[in-house]
C-alpha cells in the first residue's frame, strides 16, 4: 500500500544530483511524466542510461540535467535527429555531454548482467566495428572452455530505474504488456526503482505477452494517467506520431526549445497540467 505515492515525492526521495539513472521503455511506455518531474526538480550531473534516448532524453539533456549519456541509438524515431542531443555533443550546449556508446545487443546484455549480479556479459558483436576504439567498456575476452574470442561488456547497475507500466494492484505488483522491451531487466539491475502506471486495479488480469514485476522489485509507484505520452501505452492510447514530427522544429532551435520547456513543463504543476497545456496550444493552432 505505502508504495503507491505521488510522483513528486517519489522523485524527490529516490533521485539525487549525480545519480546514474535509467529511464527505459523501448518506444513503448516511455516514462515522460517522471522525466518532467526530474526536470522540474532541477536534478543535475546525472549519468543517463537508455538504449534509445528518444525525445525524453532530448528534453533532459537540453535542460541541463545530464553530463553523461550511456546509449545505443540517439535519434527521433521515424523523423530524424535529436537536436538537443546533437547540440550537446557537437557544441557543448547547454553543457558538454560525455558519451558511452554501445549497440542495442551490448546494452541489453549489460542490463541482463546487472540484473543477474554479474560483473560483465559476453556477446558475439562489435568485432570489426570502430565502437571498441571509442568505448572503453567493450573488451575482448577468451572463453575458458573453447578458447573462442568473444566481446565482454560490463554490467549496468543504475542507482535508479524508472519505467512506466499499464497497471499496478494495491499491493504494488506491476503489470506491463505489449512490447515489453528492457523494463524488467532495468528494474532488476537498479538499486532503487520508480514505476509510474496508468491506473491501479483491484486485481491484475492476464494479457498477451504480459510481464508482472512483483512488488518486492518495486520501491515506489505513482499513478500518472497518460504518463508515457507522446509515446504510447498498449490498450490505453497510441503513439502520437504527429507530436514526434512536431518536436523536430521545437528541438532544432535553442530558444524555441527553452520557451517550450518553460511553458509546458516548468510552468506546469504536474503531467495532467502539462497535457492540458500542450492541448491548449494545439487547439489554438487548428
Amino acid at each position, binding site marked *: 500500500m505505502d508504495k503507491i505515492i505521488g510522483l513528486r515525492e517519489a522523485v524527490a526521495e529516490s533521485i539525487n544530483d549525480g545519480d546514474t539513472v535509467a529511464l527505459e521503455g523501448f518506444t513503448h511506455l516511455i516514462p515522460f511524466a517522471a522525466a518532467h518531474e526530474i526536470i522540474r526538480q532541477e536534478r543535475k550531473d546525472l549519468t543517463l542510461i537508455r538504449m534509445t534516448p528518444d525525445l525524453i532524453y532530448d528534453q533532459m539533456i537540453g535542460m541541463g540535467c545530464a553530463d553523461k549519456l550511456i546509449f545505443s541509438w540517439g535519434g527521433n524515431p521515424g523523423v530524424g535527429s535529436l537536436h538537443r542531443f546533437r547540440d550537446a555533443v557537437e557544441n557543448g550546449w547547454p553543457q558538454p555531454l560525455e558519451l558511452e556508446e554501445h549497440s542495442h545487443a551490448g546494452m541489453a546484455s549489460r542490463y541482463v548482467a546487472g540484473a543477474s549480479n554479474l560483473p560483465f556479459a559476453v556477446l558475439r558483436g562489435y568485432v570489426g566495428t570502430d565502437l571498441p576504439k571509442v568505448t572503453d567498456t567493450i573488451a575482448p575476452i577468451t572463453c575458458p572452455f573453447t578458447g573462442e574470442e568473444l566481446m565482454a561488456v560490463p554490467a549496468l547497475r543504475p542507482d535508479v530505474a524508472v519505467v512506466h507500466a499499464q497497471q499496478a494492484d494495491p499491493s504494488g505488483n506491476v503489470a506491463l504488456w505489449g512490447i515489453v522491451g528492457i523494463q524488467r531487466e532495468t528494474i532488476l539491475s537498479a538499486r532503487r526503482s520508480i514505476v509510474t502506471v496508468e491506473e491501479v486495479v483491484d486485481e491484475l488480469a492476464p494479457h498477451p505477452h504480459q510481464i508482472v514485476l512483483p512488488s518486492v522489485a518495486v520501491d515506489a509507484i505513482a499513478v500518472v494517467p497518460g504518463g508515457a505520452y507522446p509515446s504510447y501505452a498498449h490498450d490505453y492510447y*497510441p503513439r502520437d506520431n504527429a507530436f514526434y514530427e512536431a518536436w523536430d522544429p521545437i528541438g532544432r532551435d535553442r530558444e524555441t526549445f527553452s520557451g517550450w520547456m518553460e511553458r509546458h513543463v516548468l510552468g506546469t504543476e504536474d503531467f495532467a497540467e502539462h497535457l492540458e497545456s500542450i492541448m491548449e496550444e494545439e487547439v489554438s493552432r487548428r
Partner: protein
Amino acid sequence: MSSHDGPQEGSYTTNEMMTVAASRQLRDGIVCFVGIGLPSQAANLARATHAPNCVLVYESGTIGAKPEVLPHSIGDGVLAEHADSVVPVPEIFAYWLQTGRVDIGFLGAAQIDRFANINTTVIGSYEDPKVRLPGAGGAPEIAASAKEVMVVMPQTARAFVEELAFVTSAGYLDGGDTREQLGYLGAGPTVVITDLGILKPDPETKELTLTDLHPGTSVEQAREATGWDLRVADDPGTTDPPTEEELRVLRDLRERTEAANEEMRVLDDLLDRTRAAKE
C-alpha cells in the same frame, strides 16, 4: 519512365523503384530482421505481395509482425498487435539474432564504402563531430549474425564514400577474406539496393560491383553518385520496372498509413480519459 517528382499515371518515382527492388529480395517464408524506414516499407511490401509467409522481426521484440499500416518507429503498437510472439529485447538479440535464426537483415545507412561497411555514427571525427548521427542501434549485430544482409539506401557521392568516418557495422572490412577471419555466423551484405540500381560484392575481392541498373538510369549516373571508382559488371542487367500490382500495393500501404496518422487525435482522446479519471 522514372521521375524524382510525384508519381504520374503509368510512371513511378525512383524511390518507389528502390523500394520495389528491395522487396523482391525477400523470399517467401524466410525470417527477416527489419530496420525502420525504407527497409520496413520494402519488407511490408514483400509481405503484401509475393512473400505472405515471411516472418518479420523487429528489434523491439516483435516476431512475425503483421502491421496493417507502416510503423512510424521500430516499436509501434501495430507491430505487437498481430505478432506471433513478443519477447523482451535481450531475447531478440541473444536467442534470435545471435543464434543464426534470422535469414536476412534489412538495413539502411548514412554512409557505405566499397566493401559495404556502413556508418550511422558520425560525420567528421568522433571526438569533435561535424554531424552526430543516431549511432549503432541493432545494426552491428544484425550485420554480424543475420545469415545475409541487404542494404537499402539512395545512391549519392556523399553517402557512397571512399572512406567511412566511422565503421558502425562491418561489411567485408578490407575485402577479400578479412570478414571471414572474424568468425561471424553471417555471410555479410549480399546486395545493396539504391535508387539507381543494384550492387553486389565481387565473389573474390568483395568489392561492390554495379550489376543492374533500374530503367532510365545510366552507368554514368551511378559513377557520379559514387565517391570511389565504381566497378561495373561487364554487361549490367536492367531491373524489371515495378508491376502495376507492386505499385498499387505500395501506394495503398503509404496512403493508408498517412490516413491513419491524420485520423489520430491522440491527445484529445487521452485528455477525455484523464479528465474522466479525475472526476
